[in-house]
């Protein structure tokens, strides 16, 4: 803050809290100067805030029934209306979003870690390890993803943990393939050769060169995977094979509203819009990351 003297007066208020340098740095930051990224934040940040503040808001608890206010259309008191048992759809939706985000982030994290590990092994070492991993990947990828998740749920049962596991297992083969192809591309880069001429160890090559350079595209994929996982969880719950009622997952809410489509359209439609918004924001996030992390746009 050596340049206070030349700071215009109207900026002085902002700079009291955020020094000029910080503001400038934020504007130059390659994540925040990116419209897609801002779009994602504009959806996710208020949603996150709402979830965190939900207990403080004058909302009916998600599981509390109110037989005096059944099947009410959206109003100020009940922004998304109420259901057959007079439960507030809005607070149930917020609860559902919490579950959705949990599922999305856990699946993305699981798939990223396992996918990077196995994909790196397959791509870097090749040979028998590669073949073994890829045969198993091919077998898992023979199933359409939702179907595989359904089958795994049939084996593991319903609930949050099995759902996360099932969706992650269905998603991991894709991550292994992506990481493997990235590693195959990186393995022939000249900087790997340069490190090999000084006899750097395999571990050195992987940890210093391969993993850091494959991380960016993998994070982009993880973000898409989170969106996908949220949609799959909703589908599973909708089919009655995911999170079981009375826990209000978004898919559950829509399933419950399905029977009352004619009388109470809001029960199913509004949570659906929220799912769509979350999915879009994660896609924006991945597009934004792709742009920000693209080495061509870095100067």
């Amino acid at each position, binding site marked *: 803050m050596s340049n206070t003297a030349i700071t215009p007066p109207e900026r002085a208020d902002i700079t009291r809290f955020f020094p000029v340098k910080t503001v400038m740095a934020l504007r130059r930051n390659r994540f925040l100067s990116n419209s897609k990224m801002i779009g994602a934040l504009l959806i996710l940040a208020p949603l996150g805030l709402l979830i965190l503040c939900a207990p403080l808001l004058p909302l009916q608890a998600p599981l509390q029934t109110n037989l005096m206010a059944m099947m009410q259309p959206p109003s100020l008191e009940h922004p998304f209306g109420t259901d057959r048992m007079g439960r507030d759809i809005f607070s149930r939706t917020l609860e559902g979003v919490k579950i959705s985000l949990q599922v999305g982030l856990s699946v993305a994290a699981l798939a990223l870690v396992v996918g990077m590990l196995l994909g790196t092994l397959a791509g870097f070492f090749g040979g028998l390890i590669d073949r073994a991993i890829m045969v198993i990947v091919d077998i898992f990828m023979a199933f359409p993803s939702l179907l595989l998740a359904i089958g795994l749920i049939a084996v593991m049962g319903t609930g949050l943990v099995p759902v996360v596991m099932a969706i992650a297992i269905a998603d991991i083969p894709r991550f292994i393939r992506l990481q493997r192809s990235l590693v195959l591309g990186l393995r022939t880069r*000249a900087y790997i050769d340069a490190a090999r*001429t*000084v006899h750097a160890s395999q571990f050195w090559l992987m940890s210093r060169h391969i993993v850091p350079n494959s991380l960016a595209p993998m994070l982009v994929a993880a973000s898409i995977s989170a969106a996908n996982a949220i949609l799959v969880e909703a589908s599973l719950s909708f089919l009655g094979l995911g999170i079981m009622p009375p826990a209000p997952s978004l898919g559950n809410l829509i399933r419950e509203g399905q029977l009352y489509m004619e009388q109470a359209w809001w029960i199913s439609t509004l949570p659906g819009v929220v799912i769509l918004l979350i999915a879009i924001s994660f896609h924006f996030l991945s597009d934004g990351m792709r742009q920000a992390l693209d*080495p061509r746009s*870095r100067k």
Partner: protein
Amino acid sequence: MIHQGEITAPLLDVRNLRTEFATDGGTVRAVDDASFSIMPGERIAVVGESGSGKSAMAMSILRLLVYPGRVVAGDVLLEGTNIAQLSERQLNQLRGRSVGTVFQDPMSSLDPVMRISKQMTAPIMRNLGMNYKEAHAEAVEWLRKVGIPDPERRITAFPFEMSGGMRQRVMIAMALSCRPKLLIADEPTTALDVTIQAQIVEILKKLTSEANTAMMFITHDLGLVARLADKVAVMYAGRIVEFATVEEIFAAPCHPYTQSLLRTIPSPTALNTSRLPQIPGLPPDMKKAIQGCAFRERCRAATDICAREAPALTDRGASHVAACWQPEGLGSSPIDAQPDRALRRNDGPFRDRVIVEINNLNKHFVSSSFLSRTKRNVIRAVNGVSLRVRQGETLGIVGESGCGKSTLARLLLGLEKPSSGEIFTEGLTQMVFQDPASSFNPKMRIRSIIEEPLLVKRKGDWRTRQARVEELVKLVGLDEAHLDRFPGQLSGGQLQRIAVARALALEPSVVVADEPTSALDVSVRAQIINLLADLKQELGVAFVFISHDLLTVQYISDRIAVMYLGEVVEYGPADLVFNSPSHPYTKALIDAVPIPDPAREAKRASAVLKGELPSPLSEISGCTFATRCPLATEQCRTEKPKLRQHRKSREAACHYAK
């Protein structure tokens, strides 16, 4: 402006052409106020480095630029018709018929899923009004003219079934088959080997003069300019800075850029005892508006006026214009502030101490097909190579693509395991790679990049490593400010310096440099060549310099090894090999190299090497070069010549080397 005294009207008249590209970083004015004209049958070369706007100018003429590029201003008159004002339909009438085009990369310029016959006959039928049968016969005839053997059969091929040289011939046949009045050739030989390049240039010269077709030849290679152009336009930072006949450009250049460029090229005649003159600095950033003369920051003759105002093209002779405020350009002053230091050949006390010895080295790549394990394809990338590198000398390895020079480099570094044979090295071998963009981990700062070898080998503590890194970066002519940048923030030339610094970190005895300058612009190449020459002298480190560029190899090397199809065919002191080659392939290679001297080019025989490199899969029992050798006899085809010493300190693999 320059067509005084000429009777006929120009075929193409470009006036004040301006082309811009909208990019994220700002508007790039790729072509700025370009004016020139081409007479019927005239051959004009446009020379410039990458980013000088020469390709953008060519594309602008036919309005072939794609988004985000567009022509902003100017007129292009082709036989009096203003192309800039034509409708899309009228323009299509003109393209292909009046103006033919050949592009740089033959591998990607033909539609991969369409047969040659279809790609060639369709334009002939449309433009010359022939039926399919006539058009087909015409296409076959053109393929014959451009030197494609067995054209009746080859015309049914898909592009992927042909080599790059053959595809470029097809492109030329396609462009000329509709008998255009003008041929625009955008770096048509850049992607090709030097012997193939010579063939293509001969074909272009012959066919265009036969039909009196004018040609606009875009290139960065001044040697090619001397070989085929009548007039030359030199471009720098989007502007034409000099335009003259080819004789005047080479004999009496007026613009400092042209003058500098001509001096930085290693000359095959000079004794190469002095350092290569180098142009300091880098071309300007085209995303920023350029105030004044674009070349002034690299120009020793620049004065105040150069910074204030951009010079316009002014007359310097009967048909010679240049855009420079100084009447003489640089005059006779040197182009660089650095004094010309003597370039010493390897004559130190250790010169006979061999530090790398390669004995009968083989590297065979075997691929087998899925159905039959017995049918195996063997590529002999390196075949029975024996070489020695002495302390503090530079061994140049030359050869065309596929000759095994890069595989040899990888073997030397231990990146590939030899199939058989031995390599003995004293001390460490390090490498400088061809492509500066992929040589560095983009996620690491320059400091960590140079430090990496020290860290891997656990050399010293943090403090001594940092001191060594700073020492190295100064050694290669950069400063500490560069250490905290990422590779993406440095230019190609700076990156190659960093690559050298990294290679020197562990004090190796040999540094292998695989085409270290081929990805760089002409004006920057001399800087790297000089750096390597200085380092050899200062540190006594030996270099193995691998390149397809004979002039550069000849300039920097003490000894040269010439490779052909995985074998060393000639080995000896650089000057002797270059000036009196023993092997016919070496001779052909040297003959094919264009020399930036129109007088010498005019005198040279156009006897270029016939044919192409045989498939690396083919089994050759005799001499590998016999299929293309003008001197080949029955003995050559049956008996394989060994590399043998035939004169003092010279070896060649030819039965007839004397």
